[in-house]
């Protein structure tokens, strides 16, 4: 760690200590919630009400405002997990382990949402619930990767080892994601199925784009809120008899 200036490293260690982090999360929460609503409400209004219907797909395209941001988030969170995993492995930082494992269910949730909304969007477009289209297939594989992370963490009893295992797995996964993605894309163009790539870009108009971006940022803020909540739980679970938890209990009582 010698290449990091001492004050910065000290700052990180202080912030990363469980009681500090716990208090910080509490302090941030109202601001994040306000920001989330400030993004979500105009995003939804713009997407569901203001934006005109698509000339080809009618109103069904409005699923895009959750499908695409959810798909972005599913990838973004996996990359975040790998970054946390790297930090946890190199600096043995407990907070990074906690953030990693707290992110997994949220990422899996977004992946699930992307799959279900993709299927619900596909039904009126393709006439069937499922098509082996490149994006849906990649998303499905990503869901398996998330499930691998959560079930490996659950299976290893010693939670410090489990966190190390999951850090390694997240890093291996993130190296493989582009390979999987391109192989699936390539496979998809090879076996031209009944793919209708209407789902890709319905020549997006600015009035459609703004709500999409608002929703995308809103989902990112949601992730911050949800991961902080999950991390608070995980921190207490990790060391239920630590002094700071005792102080917390007394403070509550």
């Amino acid at each position, binding site marked *: 760690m010698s290449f990091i200036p001492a004050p910065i490293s000290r700052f990180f260690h202080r912030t990363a200590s469980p009681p500090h982090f716990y208090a910080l999360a509490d302090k941030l929460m109202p601001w994040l919630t306000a920001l989330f609503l400030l993004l979500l409400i105009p995003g939804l209004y713009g997407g*569901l*009400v203001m934006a005109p*219907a698509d000339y080809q797909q*009618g*109103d*069904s395209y*409005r*699923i895009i405002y*959750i*499908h695409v941001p*959810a798909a972005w988030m599913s990838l973004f969170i996996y990359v975040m997990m790998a970054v946390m995993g790297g930090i946890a492995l190199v600096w043995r930082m407990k907070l990074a382990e906690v953030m990693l494992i*707290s992110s997994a*269910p*949220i990422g899996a*949730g*977004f992946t*699930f*949402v992307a799959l*279900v*909304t993709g299927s*619900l*969007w596909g*039904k*009126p477009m393709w006439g069937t619930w499922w098509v082996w289209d490149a994006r849906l297939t990649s998303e499905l594989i990503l869901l398996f990767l998330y499930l691998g992370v959560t079930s490996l963490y659950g299976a290893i009893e010693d939670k410090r080892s489990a966190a190390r295992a999951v850090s390694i797995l997240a890093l291996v996964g993130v190296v493989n994601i582009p390979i999987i993605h391109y192989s699936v894309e390539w496979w998809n163009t090879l076996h031209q199925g009944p793919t209708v790539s209407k789902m890709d870009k319905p020549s997006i108009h600015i009035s459609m784009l703004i709500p999409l971006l608002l929703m995308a940022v809103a989902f990112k803020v*949601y992730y911050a*809120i*949800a991961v902080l*909540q*999950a991390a*608070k*739980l995980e921190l*207490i*679970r990790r060391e*239920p008899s630590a002094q700071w*938890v*005792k102080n*917390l*209990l007394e403070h*509550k*009582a």
Partner: protein
Amino acid sequence: MNLESFFAMGGYAFYVWTSYGITTAVLLWNLFAPIVLRKQLLRQLTLKQKRTQ
């Protein structure tokens, strides 16, 4: 723009609203499950602490 046509979604109501519904459910679950579990855990720990004192 009236409410009825807003909810009808040009005939795609089922697909659009099911999508938004499921998304809301999943996001709420991931947000509130840890909060509820943490409250439970803190309650358990308080009880345990009282017992040992």
